[in-house]
């Protein structure tokens, strides 16, 4: 199964969620600023990355985990991509997880300052702090996604 975590820029909440899914971050302890910055793609994307489905890794069940920045399209992006998967009769191979629901003002403001205004030294600490504040919600989101993916896998086995 392909699991795509998507958010506005594909740079913060989706990357953190994908990292949690892959075990790159410990779900039981709050990540430090350094932990977050070390993650691949975290606060490192450019405008050209919008719409690119970027591979983050493969989890212990063989699910491929990706991140995607989709601007302000919200849940519509899930419908669009799932609709395409349905046309290809591959909908059972795809799980889309919208991470924009966990975004807080610090993440929005810090992300905008760092990525759009390119004021990294100002924006990055703000967005990292915001990510820490949203961390528990991201853990819940990822746990739900992992459960859905596992259930889907068991459905295939059974």
């Amino acid at each position, binding site marked *: 199964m*392909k699991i795509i975590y998507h958010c506005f820029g594909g740079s913060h909440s989706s990357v953190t969620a994908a990292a949690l899914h892959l075990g790159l971050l410990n779900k039981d302890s709050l990540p430090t600023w350094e932990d977050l910055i070390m993650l691949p793609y975290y606060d490192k994307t450019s405008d050209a990355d*919008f*719409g*690119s*489905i970027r591979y983050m890794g493969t989890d212990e069940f063989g699910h*491929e985990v*990706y991140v*995607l920045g*989709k*601007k302000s*399209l919200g*849940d*519509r*992006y*899930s*419908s*669009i*991509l*799932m*609709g*395409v*998967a*349905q*046309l*290809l009769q*591959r909908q059972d*191979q*795809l799980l889309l997880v919208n991470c924009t629901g966990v975004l807080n003002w610090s993440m929005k403001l810090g992300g905008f300052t760092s990525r759009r205004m390119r004021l990294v030294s100002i924006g990055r600490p703000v967005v990292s702090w915001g990510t820490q504040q949203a961390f528990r919600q991201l853990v819940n989101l990822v746990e739900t996604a992992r459960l859905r993916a596992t259930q889907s896998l068991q459905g295939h086995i059974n």
Partner: protein
Amino acid sequence: MKIIFVGSTGVHHSLIAANIYLEKLDQADYQNLNLWGDLDKEALGFPIFVNNDRWGNSVYSLGVGADVLMVVKSIKQLVKMLNCSERDLIVTPVFIKRERLVLLLHTVGCNKFLNQIFLPIIGYLLKKEFAFIRQQVREFKSGADLPKCHFRH
């Protein structure tokens, strides 16, 4: 094979392009076009089935908002990720010169009452774009490695 015409809305210019491709529309008369301005279909966010072409390929229209190329990029990538190719699904963008204005009118006319007011205005604007849309469909037909290779007798 599936062919998806992608535009900022799925029930206006991309629908026109799909119908031109299907040879069901040869002049800018949209009022009787099936699914024209259909808000319910558009709201679902899924590709809208228009019809099958003469070769048996299913033709769809899809509305994706302002950034059409971003979504086209994602769809093309997704097709490859799902171990499919352009022989399974082709996606082609449809542009108009009054893109922002049509999208704005479509967004403002988000309920059925307002849609009845704005739809004729959108229709009027798109009449001026008909030749441009038809040109894009011609280029798509001539450039794409398509349907003839899946000819159904």
